């Protein structure tokens, strides 16, 4: 994660402390809904671009319920986009057979495949980001634990999130120190960057040891206990049912084809 990425995640998490309908939903329900959503998004084939469209309802509604400005999602999406692009970039090269034509221009299967990968990426990541922005990372971790995730995994997630900011701040200071003594350069040379990364790693290891000592001194035995109360209520049941309905319909019914057929049927 980049220095900017840690900041983005931090400001998203801060959104979750507001009292919104989405924030009031039970964290476990939101975690399960998000996992199911990502699974359904992933289940579509590489040419099912249009069938993904109805699924956009889930992030849109969750963003509206959580009063999360879409702008807040765009930055982290853009930061992670190179990874998705790296995967999707080969599609147009591998599959050049035309899939269909629009206004006389042939669209290759590869182009559709690329767009599908990007759409899947945008849908899954915005759902995950919205989960954090409407729930808070700590509540997500508690929910995972209560849903039966192993305690070591949850402890790792919590500590990674906590120290991401410390590490990002340290990396930022290193870069600034470099910039101030190398005014002519915009970024360190590969060699210097390697040394800086090494120093960062050594400092991180030393800090990890100090943190572990501090944890042991307060009785740490493997579990990071978080006390969060609350049980699912009627809004949670409603949210779960609506999500389930959306996912089932999107999975079982080819909504765009039906709509198209309906339109075509309506026109003489």
């Amino acid at each position, binding site marked *: 994660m980049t220095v900017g990425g840690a900041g983005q995640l931090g400001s998203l998490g801060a959104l979750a*402390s507001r009292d919104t309908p989405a924030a009031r939903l039970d964290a476990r329900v939101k975690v399960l809904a998000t996992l199911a959503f990502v699974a359904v998004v992933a289940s579509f084939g590489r040419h099912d671009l249009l069938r993904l469209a109805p699924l956009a309802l889930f992030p849109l509604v969750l963003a509206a319920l959580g009063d999360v400005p879409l702008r807040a999602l765009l930055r982290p999406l853009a930061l992670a986009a190179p990874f998705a692009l790296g995967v999707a970039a080969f599609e147009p090269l591998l599959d050049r057979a035309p899939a269909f034509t629009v206004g006389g221009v042939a669209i290759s299967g590869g182009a559709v495949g690329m767009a599908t990968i990007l759409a899947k990426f945008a849908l899954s990541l915005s759902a995950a980001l919205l989960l954090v922005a409407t729930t808070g990372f700590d509540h997500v971790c508690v929910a995972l634990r209560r849903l039966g995730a192993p305690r070591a995994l949850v402890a790792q997630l919590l*500590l990674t999130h*906590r120290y991401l900011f410390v590490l990002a701040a340290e990396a930022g200071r290193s870069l600034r120190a470099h910039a101030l003594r190398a005014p002519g350069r915009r970024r360190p040379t590969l060699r210097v960057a390697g040394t800086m990364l090494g120093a960062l790693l050594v400092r991180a290891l030393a800090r990890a040891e*100090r943190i572990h*000592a501090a944890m042991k001194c307060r*009785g740490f035995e493997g579990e990071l*206990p978080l006390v969060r109360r609350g049980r699912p209520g009627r809004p949670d049941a409603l949210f779960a049912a609506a999500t389930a309905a959306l996912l089932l319909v999107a999975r079982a019914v080819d909504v765009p084809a039906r709509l198209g057929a309906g339109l075509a049927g309506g026109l003489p």
Partner: protein
Amino acid sequence: MSHHLVGVDDVHYAYPDGTQALRGVSFLLHHGESLGLVGANGAGKSTLLLLLAGVVFPERGAVRVGDWPVTPATLPHVRRSLGMVFQDPDDQLFMPTVEDDVAFGPLQLGLPPDEVRARTAAALARVGAAHLGPRMPHRLSGGEKRAVSIATVLAMSPDVLVMDEPSAGLDPASRRGLVEQLQAFEHTKIVASHDLDLVYEVCRRTIVLVGGTVAADGPTAEVLARRDVLAAARLEPPLRLQGCPRCGAAG
């Protein structure tokens, strides 16, 4: 209950790289005492604190906390009676929110939820941080982080409070607040610091470490007035014991 709270007997310790950090340190600390541990960088202060908390173990000599010799088997008991505040609050505060962090120790002690809540609230109030409960530690100021770090340990009701450089990195007002808090704590205290004015104000007794040995041990006012000892320890007398910089009158 033994008559003393902390016993350090002829302790030797070398780091894995061979650096000899402590060469035969001994002292006894009684209930209610406040001890300042001063010395140059590398004199062995932090190492001594790690030995007290059972983070590392001496290669020779013995450490006792309360009724327990500090060994791997007795650590749960030792850590109940000794509360350690680390130098860098970012090391001390590892939970997602301030409340979670302060509640961590009491939860590990297996206390019931109501008691955990009560202790968390009381500890935060004690350090003037009651309003910080839901905040994330990485968004606090240096002074706030320090206050919360101390609260995390107070919530465990330790018999002895151990602090490593508590005033490091604090602005003067935060430092003043810290001094007043520490003066108000009736806990048995061990404070390792370069800040001799802090030690002067907070600790009745002072030990000077030089090269891993005890160079002086006695009432703070007497020890910190001994310029020969301080010079050997690469320290300077606290400002309040120095002459007035304007008129030259003795401190």
